[in-house]
């Protein structure tokens, strides 16, 4: 058990810190959250800077255009960029964390050459078309149909909770290519397509979240033509292809956020000492417990990263579900505590903690609800039987 960094890792950290200190002051001002084209330009501009400095796709394999960095170097990257207050992955999220890794692992050489470099350069933005109004936790029951017509699939149906749909160039789309029957269980018969978002027949309708912003959208598909060449993986094998993607989502996606939560916790303590609420032992102890919680979550991250480094895959295992269950809950607890620290200020939308408190409500739902995650932990790690 070794928590110290090697000389090579420390020199990587030092180089990154130096680059961040030099680069961050030159960034343009952050756009208004409601300005989607502005947000896209800001996020992709940051990605381009990372690309030019050699930090894009750090943990992607070399033959996918990445840097082939170790999981530990990737962890250092996420830790240091967050500590320095660098921009978030933002609109590049799906491309860098879902679609890109999936194409890197399952795509043909042509597909990798077509789609991966623009993601790394920040030239193209992806969105995700997985969930449907009637296929949420039970994703495999999705009904968006695709049938063959010459060299194209013709796709009809609807998708929901699609982030960045208004500004995306591509959509990683799950479609049904074989109807469910006695011979075809619902997990088969699904295919993974890269759909160009400018194709005729696509309608995007933004959805307003309870925080008041339009962070995601419904996407309606009316006989949209997608070339068969845009299918990644074999026809009807999309479920397996998708699982590759989802394991990424449940792995390192929250590393920077744990660092951010620890900073927010320190800010809460500072604010409570200032406004007198620190004298309340119940609140003080609550903050102390959260400190233990986020400290342990950071250690669990290091544990999981070391595990994937030893396995040599870089792909996080089901242990990501253990992390996600605890983290999503802890994040909500953190912002509940923030509400106590703020007192009446907790009712003021002008305070960023109030907005973050609202956003935190999605954490036990998005990317697999806590209930589904508990099923995964119970069935795949503990080996309990499947049931209802």
């Amino acid at each position, binding site marked *: 058990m070794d928590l110290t960094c090697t000389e090579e890792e420390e020199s990587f950290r030092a180089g990154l810190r130096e680059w961040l200190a030099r680069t961050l002051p030159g960034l343009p001002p952050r756009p208004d959250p409601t300005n989607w084209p502005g947000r896209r330009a800001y996020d992709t501009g940051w990605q381009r800077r990372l690309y030019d400095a050699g930090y894009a796709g750090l943990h992607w394999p070399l033959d996918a255009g990445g840097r082939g960095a170790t999981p530990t170097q990737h962890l250092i990257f996420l830790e240091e960029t967050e500590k320095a207050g660098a921009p978030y992955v933002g609109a590049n999220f799906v491309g860098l964390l879902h679609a890109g890794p999936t194409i890197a692992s399952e795509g043909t050489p042509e597909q990798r050459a077509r789609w991966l470099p623009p993601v790394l350069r920040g030239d193209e933005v992806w969105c995700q078309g997985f969930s449907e109004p009637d296929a949420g936790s039970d994703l495999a029951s999705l009904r968006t149909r695709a049938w063959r017509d010459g060299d194209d699939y013709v796709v009809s149906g609807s998708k929901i909770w699609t982030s960045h749909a208004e500004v995306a160039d591509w959509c990683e789309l799950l479609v049904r290519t074989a109807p469910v029957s006695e011979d075809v269980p619902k997990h088969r018969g699904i295919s993974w397509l890269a759909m160009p978002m400018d194709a005729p027949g696509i309608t995007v309708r933004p959805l307003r979240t309870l925080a008041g912003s339009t962070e995601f959208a419904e996407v309606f598909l009316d006989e949209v033509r997608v070339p068969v060449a845009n299918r990644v993986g074999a026809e009807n094998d999309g479920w397996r292809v998708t699982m590759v993607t989802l394991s990424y989502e449940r792995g390192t996606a929250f590393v920077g956020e744990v660092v951010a939560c620890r900073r927010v916790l320190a800010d809460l303590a500072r604010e409570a000492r200032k406004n007198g609420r620190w004298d309340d032992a119940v609140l003080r102890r609550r903050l*102390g417990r959260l400190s233990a919680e986020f400290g342990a979550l950071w250690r669990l991250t290091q544990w999981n990263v070391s595990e994937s480094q030893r396995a040599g895959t870089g792909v996080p295992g089901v242990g990501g579900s253990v992390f996600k*269950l605890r983290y999503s809950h802890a994040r909500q607890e953190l912002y509940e505590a923030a509400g106590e620290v703020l007192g009446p200020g907790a009712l003021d939308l002008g305070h960023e903690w109030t907005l973050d408190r609202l956003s935190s409500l999605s954490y036990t739902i998005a990317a697999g609800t806590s209930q589904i995650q*508990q099923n995964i932990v119970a069935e795949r790690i503990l080996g309990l039987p499947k049931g209802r």
Partner: protein
Amino acid sequence: MDFQLSEDQRALRDGFRDLLAGRFDGTALRAAVDSGAPSLDRALWRELGDAGFFALRVPEEEGGVGLGLPEAVLIFEEAGRALLPGPLVATFLAARDVEGAARGAVVVTSVLTTADSGGLVPWLDEADVARGDVSGAVPLRSVDPLTPLHRVPGGGGAATPRQPEADLLIAAEQLGSAGKTCEMAVRYARERTQFGQAIGAFQAVKHLCAQMLVRTEIARAAVYAAAVTGDAPEIAGAKLLADEAAVRGARDCLQVHGGMGFTWEADVHLHLKRAWVRAGLGQSAAEAEEELAAAL
């Protein structure tokens, strides 16, 4: 960074697991519980000494094994899994100062104090040496059939400063117990059938088991990391999370066992009672939370 067990660490852990499985298995545990007044198995204590349990951190030039805190938490985790009785922590920490402790020839206990509730001394009557001020110690009818307890009025409190290493080793025992009760619950949930299926197929049961594992793995990350850094606030966090994992794990294990869980015959209550005792020894949850808050 390589925050995983090394091969040597795995071998050490497996070696002690095997030793305890051979020398203190479920049958031996029940025999100890049902023997009436708890007495310390001196022969086992010396065998532990021979195996290097107490001398693990004593430097090699002093005749010890010369390993560190990370290795210590691994063997205490195994002791916790097996519900091994005795003042293991105090004897371990006395290995360099008390002649014979490292060999397992001398049994050492000590006052493990929480500032708010006075001092508690486990195994006072059986120990050869008691460290800390035990004058006026009064026996309790201990809730744990395998941990006799004395209370020190006024609690040697100021005299006994906080011992982070003791807290860490207790936390490691709690971690072992949490892992074990999770395994016990899962095994029972797979075997016991109702409504024509294993009860582990019901989500209500599944989710209890999943949360037991989550608490265990969070505590594991905290305990192992605290052993590597030796940092006092990090140890406070480890004790807090491990106490919770052990106590709530035993509670949930009891619940999964249904009526059987409420019987003397099932081992579940032994884990719960020991977890309560360990949570009451060393730093309390309130103290840990205050220490962590102060460090924010």
